[in-house]
């Protein structure tokens, strides 16, 4: 890459890839969508100021860097510096079997799922989405970073009606449609009958998919930007640490997770780092810019959410420690309570206390599921719940959305009402 004309530092990320997805409705394929992608993102530091430019399509590198330089001229001086070279570990991000999947094969896989569901539930899948994605990513900068990798991602989402669905994400072709449809059929059966929402204070068991929602305010408070601005609850220290069984890791190296990669969005090697250890806040999420503001080293957690967007602090993958009891036992021990699969709440607000509508949940009475709950609302304070001795984490964990490895979380004394 020739970027010698750029004064100050520069960075250039280039990406190309393709995607195929199949939409199924009522057992019929209704759309086959393909995509060819090509794009680049440049950042330039000029006179201590950082600027950026991105483009899709064929990119003239020199022009892109020049535009990033023009953007830098409009910015404020900062202590930002591009990272130097690091050692990238071998991480399995690419599966040739996924990469070679053709649209016809995905269609057949979708119809297999439908046939399996029909065999179990006696009707077609109301909806399904199967998608496979490939990408090649390369990054270089003026400080000597030079790296590239290829990645694949396979996504299957099956909808069963009555607000039930299951989904799996993986870099590999390890998703088992048979097991997935069985899981969906079980959830559909449990949700067949409706139950009115109970009112009062009771235990609520959050499935891993709902735990991902619960953790949003915690993750927002661990964002380096929130520390830099003083807005994080951890900036001044939370009142007391969480319970010692609570551990949370950021891990960009987890095998089988779609957020894994040898390096983050700025070329910093990914790693496993403790965010919460034995209930105490030990780490935070930093990209190079927030790291510079805080006088710390970046943590390999710069995430580019858009294609080919700019890096911001985020999580590659998030892992939460498991507990002692399997989730079926946690349900079996409940006299009256809820199992919640999905919540509706605002993303990434910093406040740990919130009320949220239960989008998908089940009523438990006498240790048995009695039907799906409609129009229920739960209210709790996450930080208080994570401090409470009686909060339990399940021994079984699930991959949620390809980037979270989370247990079921049982919280006592949750206020439940009619939403």
């Amino acid at each position: 890459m020739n970027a010698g004309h750029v004064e100050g530092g520069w960075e250039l990320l280039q990406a190309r890839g393709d995607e195929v997805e199949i939409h199924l409705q009522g057992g019929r394929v209704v759309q086959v969508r393909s995509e060819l992608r090509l794009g680049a993102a440049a950042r330039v530091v000029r006179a201590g100021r950082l600027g950026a430019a991105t483009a899709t399509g064929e990119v003239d590198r020199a022009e892109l860097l020049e535009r990033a330089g023009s953007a830098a001229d409009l910015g404020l001086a900062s202590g930002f510096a591009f990272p130097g070279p690091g050692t990238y570990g071998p991480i399995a991000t690419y599966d040739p079997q996924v990469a070679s999947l053709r649209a016809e094969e995905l269609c057949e896989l979708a119809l297999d799922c439908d046939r399996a569901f029909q065999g179990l539930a006696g009707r077609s899948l109301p909806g399904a989405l199967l998608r496979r994605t490939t990408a090649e990513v390369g990054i270089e900068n003026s400080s000597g970073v030079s790296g590239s990798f290829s990645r694949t991602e396979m996504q299957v989402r099956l909808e069963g009606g009555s607000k039930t669905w299951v989904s799996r994400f993986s870099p590999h072709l390890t998703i088992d449609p048979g097991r997935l449809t069985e899981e969906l059929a079980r959830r559909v059966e449990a949700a067949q009958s409706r139950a009115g929402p109970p009112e009062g204070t009771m235990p609520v068991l959050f499935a891993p998919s709902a735990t991902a929602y619960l953790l949003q305010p915690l993750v927002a408070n661990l964002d380096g930007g929130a520390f830099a601005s003083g807005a994080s609850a951890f900036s001044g220290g939370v009142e007391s640490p969480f319970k010692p069984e609570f551990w949370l890791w950021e891990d960009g190296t987890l095998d089988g997770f779609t957020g894994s990669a040898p390096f983050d969005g700025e070329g910093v090697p990914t790693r496993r780092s403790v965010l919460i250890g034995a209930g105490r806040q030990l780490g935070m999420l930093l990209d190079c810019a927030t790291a510079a503001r805080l006088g710390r080293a970046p943590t390999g957690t710069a995430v580019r959410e858009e294609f080919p967007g700019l890096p911001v602090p985020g999580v590659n993958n998030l892992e939460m420690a498991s507990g002692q009891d399997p989730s079926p036992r946690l349900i079996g021990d409940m006299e009256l309570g809820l199992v919640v699969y999905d919540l509706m709440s605002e993303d990434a607000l910093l406040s740990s206390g919130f009320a949220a509508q239960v989008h998908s949940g089940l009523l438990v009475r006498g240790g048995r599921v009695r039907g799906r709950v409609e129009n229920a609302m739960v209210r709790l304070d996450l930080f208080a719940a994570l401090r409470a001795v009686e909060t339990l984490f399940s021994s079984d964990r699930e991959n949620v959305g390809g980037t979270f490895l989370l247990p079921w979380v049982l919280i006592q004394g949750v206020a439940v009402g009619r939403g």
Partner: protein
Amino acid sequence: MTAVAENWLELLDRHLRARPARYADARYLLRDTLRIRVEDDQSNVHFERTRGGFVRAAIDSAWGGAAFNTKDQLPGACEMAWSAARMTGGKPMVIAGAPPAVARLRLKPRSDPRGIPAAEKAALMRQAVEVMRASPRVVSARATYTETVGTRFVVTDRGSAVEEEFMELAVALRAAARAGDVTELGNFDCASGNDFAAVRSCLAGAREAAAAAVQLLDAEPVEVGRRTVVLHPTLAGTLIHESLGHFCEADNVLADEYLEKKMRIGARIASPILDISDDPGVTGARACYRYDDEAVEARRTALVREGRLVGLLHTRQTAARFGVEPTGHARTVGHRFAPLPRMSVTCIHPGLSTLDELLRGAEGGIYMSRSFGGETEGENFHLSAARVHRIEGGRIGTPLRSAAVIGNTFEMLKSLDGVADDQVLVDGSFYCGKGDQYPLAVGMAAPHIRVADVMVGPI
């Protein structure tokens, strides 16, 4: 611009003509965005250039579609789309017709941002941050300016060829105030589809955001429970967008048996004082357009009249399924996806009450303004209000912390018991998501509304 435009319209048309289909269309997007984000003493300026297109064909029972970035990729994308469209066999889908449209539509901004140096815009955002930071107890402030200017090209195999320029300007401000371990946020946003003067008004908004964040530090949290709420037009519009608006998107109705039963034309779904329409023709709104992404002329579409459902938002495909004409609401985010029925500017028609009358009838209730956003899943909705006050003595009284209104859409629509006469266009920094397609600029025109007996809780 003209030379480029002719190339794309002709190029897309040539590729469509070369491949027979029951229906086919092609789009290309040229979009340039300037993003300026200032947070405390940090800034990030970003020039973004998007070039990409989408071709799709209906031959049998399924759509085949392919997205691409460059001219060189276009033939391959067409091959993929047509091959996919032939893959499924089955009964061919029916696509509704629309009069062929041939048009080249240029922007006519009231105040054109393209003539204003980017440095001036960056300085304005820095100034907004300084204004917020000047407020005691504000620990952090952020100002974001987004300016998008672009051209959409849409060609169909039924003779349409449309080139339409568009513009989206938006400012979002956020102040964070902190006392002890309590952090509260105050926000302000403003937007326009044709007028940079709206952006210049953000300095007053900066003072408002900072004051709101500080005020919230000393505010009490809202008590959980069912209340009568009076909603500012921003929240009224967001509520109707999230609750009813998505139900009026015809593909959502077709995909859900429960909704299909509920959303029958003529069914009473809301209080009889409620009239709602969706209008892509509201001049000055970011979601204003003349032709949709299927080259169908957009039109104001009545959705609810006196509480009864009178219409839905359609693409060509859903219109054919319902046996009606397409409404011009086929919209996409960028170039990567096929069009879906989407809202543009959703309008609650003005009622007969005044705001004072609404407040007088809501003693002990809650007044909510400024939106943090909302969400809908099935018939459940969730709406977050940044600013909340008790209603005391028929007036907006003691401030409370941010809160959410949550509930069941159909129950809420029937307990809506007041619509004020003060409708305004509220074109803030509102973006809608549907499936993978986010962010799509949308707007609302709404008056104050009052809803009885709805669940309110803290966020």
